[in-house]
């Protein structure tokens, strides 16, 4: 009883202090959307890439590597977000399609993936039909992945605005870096500045893991350019930011060559 009596505010200052704490508590338990819910989770290794530690809903991300894009969206996809990948056909033989086996290995839940291949008839000569498709996708999907598309700057701005309005993440995969791409003026731009594969030697081993130096640029919170080292993938297919607890793993993987782990695939 004595302990309970002590908590009764005695002075005006104490009463104000209690009220302030209560207000803070009310804000925490209120059913409105909190800022934290505006961030979609990303796996541990990718957190360093984003100033907020996750994918901010309504933002635009430009990535040069499909595998990095898969790694970033994997966690959101596993927690129930749908992913729509829009492939615009690109420039013929050399463009290539996204590898969904690889996406599954990075942890993307394939049951929540929809792939749209915009046919040439809809795309038109200068990509006229693409903005309509992308904005229809932004209306419904949490993450929209658009690979290799060139649009007019006006359309790019409009689509960025659309993503902000619909609280979706627009991710532009631009394997060929270009100024006219959908990623122009993105909130976060992730580029590979250096990559090194481990596990493969001269005629032995197999690709196993790689360390990638990602240069992060962008606007607002990401305006200060940074370099982040990530493992993509790690040996278990997962993704890890390079941290101090595994400094030896890089040297070890490189020197051993993993000749023993392969076996002939035949």
């Amino acid at each position, binding site marked *: 009883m004595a302990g309970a009596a002590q908590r009764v505010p005695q002075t005006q200052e104490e009463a104000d202090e209690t009220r302030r704490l209560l207000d803070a508590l009310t804000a925490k338990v209120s059913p409105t959307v909190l800022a934290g819910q505006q961030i979609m989770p990303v796996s541990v290794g990718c957190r360093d890439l984003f100033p907020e530690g996750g994918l901010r809903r309504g933002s635009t991300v430009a990535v040069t590597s499909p595998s990095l894009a898969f790694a970033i969206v994997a966690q959101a996809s596993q927690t129930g977000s749908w992913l729509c990948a829009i492939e615009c056909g690109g420039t013929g033989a*050399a463009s290539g399609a996204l590898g969904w086996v690889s996406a599954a290995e990075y942890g993307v839940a394939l049951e929540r993936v929809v*792939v749209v291949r915009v046919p040439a008839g*809809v795309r038109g000569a200068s990509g006229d039909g693409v903005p309509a498709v992308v904005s229809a996708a932004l*209306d419904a999907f949490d993450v929209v992945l658009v690979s290799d598309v060139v649009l007019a700057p006006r359309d790019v701005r409009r689509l960025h605005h659309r993503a902000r309005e619909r609280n979706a993440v627009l991710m532009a995969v631009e394997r060929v870096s270009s100024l006219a791409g959908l990623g122009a003026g993105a909130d976060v731009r992730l580029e590979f500045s250096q990559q*090194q594969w481990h596990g493969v030697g001269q005629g*032995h081993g197999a*690709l196993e893991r790689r360390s990638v130096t990602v240069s992060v640029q962008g606007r607002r919170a990401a305006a200060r350019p940074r370099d982040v080292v990530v493992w993509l993938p790690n040996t278990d297919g997962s993704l890890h930011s390079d941290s101090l607890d595994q400094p030896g793993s890089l040297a070890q993987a490189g020197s051993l060559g993993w000749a023993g782990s392969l076996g002939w695939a*035949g």
Partner: protein
Amino acid sequence: MIRTVAVRCHRWPIVAAGAVDRASAAMHANRVVAVSELGERAGVMVAMRKRDAQRRCPSIELIDHDPGRDARAFEPVIRALESIHPRIEITEPGVCAFGARGPARYFGGELPLVSQVRYVVCQSIGMGHGAVAVGIADGPFAAWLAALKGLVVPAGESPTFLAPLPIGTLAGAVDDSVNLVDVLIRLGLRTLGAFAALDANDVLARFGWAGARAHALASGGDARLLDANVPMPDLVVSTMLDPPAERVDVAAFAAKSLAHELHDGLSARGLACSQVLIHAQTANGEILERVWRHEGALSAGAVAERVRWQLDGWLNGAVGVRPTAGIALLRLVPEGIMADVGRQLGFWGGTTAADERAVRAIARLSSLVGPDSVMVPERRGGRHPSNAVVLVRADSVDLDKRVVAAGPMAGCPWPGGLPLPSPSVLHSPGVPSEVVDAAGVPVGVSGRGVVSAPPASVRVGAGSRSAGGSRAGGGWRKVAAWAGPWPIDERWWDASAHLRRARFQIVLDGGDALLLVLERGRWTCEAAYE
């Protein structure tokens, strides 16, 4: 209790595919769904794996199971049966049921009716009397089982007929029946009679709605009326197609939104329907009506699928039966209306608002870019990453209950597959490339899988194609590390599908890694680890 005639065509997928006269099997997901008589004589059985079937009967012809084709081929049978009874209820392609009372009186008894039905069906599919089984009993469930044995169960004897049958016959008859049957077997209830002997109230208390329904079926009390009451008129949805739809796609697209409308109307009243009558009318007044039965509640997508099947059979049918004009009116009449007992959302996951939004968006995207261009990934097997997951049309998949992990073998290794990680960009077809050793001589692989010399330089997109967008495109690049060759010799027994190739993983100087394939002396870049 309504006397019901059930008609089953044996091996319908085989009959529909026109492969009765040889050893053949319809396959779905690597399992045999149906097998022809010759195949069965060779020892092939339903639910067998493809490889086992081929081992027992190497000459067997494998047909892809196609429910659409089965339904189309069943259409003439239904049309023939309509000379006996105007309302035929289709349970699934190859199986249908209708009321026995009127026709039995007309043909002078149930046994003459059976032979008449058998004659009519055999005429329409052009096969002997063994191809079809007809049974009569009280209620559709008992009749369906009677048809399996080709029996006429006298009126009121259905409980006695059902009692000795194994409990497994309930599987597929009610929702979640596989689990129910499993539990009942473990409880020691191995026959329908043993289950029927339980008190109905106890069954309801323990197994809920689905259990009570299964209990009613097992005790011969299939309460569902074959010809349901006339529904409340405001539940009927219809749409005029102007201009009339000549193609199935157009009509099916209209049917899809119509099915959604029907679904919304029902769910607004807390109802569900167990059958739906699809009424289509052409501009010249020809009418085609079909009742489709579906155990449990029909989802909107399931209704749309049935509309597509039915119209497919009609619009693309034989010249004599094909309508003379496009379809001008589509109407969906829900039948067998019952209170929707609802579905409990799973505590962990289950359908969320995001899922429903995504499924709707797929319809929207299909209308923008065409249904062929909206796809979802599905796991298949294969040694190449482009085979292991393939893209299929989104509207051919039931997205509500989607599980991508394919069967018990998912996650097991494919002998001869590529080591993980898989490439993130696939080139299909591969980009022609050149690989040379330090002396500038093209690298080859001998018949024993030995590489002629270590590769030193690579050029992807050789010749005029070097203008391609790939980062590796253009000129020669040095090889930093390489692994291989991993030879593979696939389908050597089939000259047209034979693949003999050696695969290499090559890391270029800047750190880019490529999957290069040597086949018949030609190098191609098939994928990139970007």
